[in-house]
């Protein structure tokens, strides 16, 4: 199947040990080095334990002194852990450096339980907003500015980069890069309350030319100008605009995800559902049965026809 909806949710939950870019690669190596070191140390400890319990008397006598404690219990861990720390910091320090001139910047704000995404210009000013998807060009690093609107979240797209906490009032940085176009799943990696496990996201990497086309499309309203749709009227009457913005309309709520181009997203509900008119209608009607505890109420006031009208309109916002 080539439906975009399929790649979107196929990428979530993400694979943790399958790097797809130059920042995730060394981290993956580091993870395996740590596993290997931990395995080797465990083996040494188990052998020593076996010798201490069941070995010949002469060997057991050697294990009885303070010397072994100083060597095996103090010097060895200090040397090994220091070496691993220096190696790990060397691998990851460039991930969190300030953006250089000309580097692409995207601000991702953790919200309970979704992601507000703002694309920034070179001065750090917001150009347009989106949600739950981060679009990037392939083959170049992108600097993410991570913060939080409420509690601590953690941004983690394991195939593209490391994991960094999103802390209220703080701006943490993280670079990521994808070598090939595709959808890369992410997941909030810090428990943030109720539906934390269902706080997913998707990073979509495009060839640079397609990325430029995507930016042009996002920068303009998707709303068909002259004739307001029936679905837009339902959207207004149900009060959806109190929490959601749609560029080109009077709907300008800021509490929930921006819906200006929601029909072009791969997923709904923050990375967790494929996006089509059926899932859209189900989400609007009763998102609480899908993602219990999320901040959007169920709408048991809409008729079937209204639900189809409003979901059709939202899906048309490409």
């Amino acid at each position: 199947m080539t439906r975009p909806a399929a790649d979107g949710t196929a990428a979530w939950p993400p694979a943790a040990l399958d790097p797809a870019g130059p920042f995730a690669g060394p981290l993956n190596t580091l993870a395996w080095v740590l596993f290997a070191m931990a395995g080797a140390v465990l083996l040494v400890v188990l052998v020593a334990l076996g010798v201490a319990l069941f070995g010949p008397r002469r060997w057991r006598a050697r294990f009885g002194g303070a010397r072994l404690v100083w060597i095996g219990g103090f010097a060895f861990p200090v040397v090994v852990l220091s070496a691993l720390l220096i190696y790990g910091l060397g691998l990851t320090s460039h991930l969190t450096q300030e953006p250089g001139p000309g580097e692409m910047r995207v601000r991702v704000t953790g919200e309970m339980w979704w992601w507000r995404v703002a694309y920034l210009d070179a001065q750090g000013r917001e150009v347009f907003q989106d949600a739950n998807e981060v679009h990037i060009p392939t083959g170049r690093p992108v600097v993410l500015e991570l913060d939080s609107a409420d509690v601590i979240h953690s941004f983690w797209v394991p195939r593209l980069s490391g994991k960094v906490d999103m802390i209220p009032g703080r701006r943490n940085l993280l670079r990521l890069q994808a070598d090939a176009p595709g959808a890369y799943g992410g997941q909030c990696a810090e428990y943030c309350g109720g539906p934390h496990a269902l706080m997913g996201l998707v990073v979509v990497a495009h060839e640079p030319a397609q990325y430029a086309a995507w930016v042009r499309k996002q920068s303009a309203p998707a709303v068909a100008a002259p004739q307001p749709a029936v679905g837009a009227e339902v959207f207004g009457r149900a009060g959806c605009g109190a929490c959601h913005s749609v560029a080109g309309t009077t709907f300008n709520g800021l509490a929930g995800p921006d819906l200006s181009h929601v029909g072009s997203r791969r997923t709904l509900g923050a990375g967790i559902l494929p996006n089509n008119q059926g899932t859209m209608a189900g989400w609007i009607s009763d998102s609480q049965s899908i993602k219990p505890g999320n901040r959007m109420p169920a709408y048991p006031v809409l008729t079937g026809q209204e639900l189809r009208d409003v979901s059709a309109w939202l899906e048309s916002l490409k």
Partner: protein
Amino acid sequence: MGVGLIRNGKGRDGDAANPSGIDVRWGVLGLAALLCACADKSDPPRGIAGADADNGLAVIGRTGCAACHVIPGIDWPRGLAGPSLEGFADSPMIGGQFPNQPDVLVDWLVDAPAMAPATAMPAMPLTEGEARDVAAYLYTLDD
């Protein structure tokens, strides 16, 4: 139908034209029992030629049908906007108003509003082949 035959038999119980009414009654009961056996729920589910129920479940998963329906075989989500599909193969109706027959179900899955304009279920992005696979899976839900 079986019930109707029994009633007919009872109705003609004292019919003068048929003095050996007892034998006829036993014959009718036997026929009724046979007919009841034909409608037994343990019959194989309605088949859909060439359809692949396993692929149907995969299509259901990636289309997100469970956003609105509880569907055995899908652990999450278990949406409540639409009816639960547990035991769907044994349900006589689709959407509360159409006979639960394979062709009707396939049409319903692809474009429900064309059949029931007031339904909340939108037309779904399924090919004919995918809809047939989904229908085949739904007909395995006979518990």
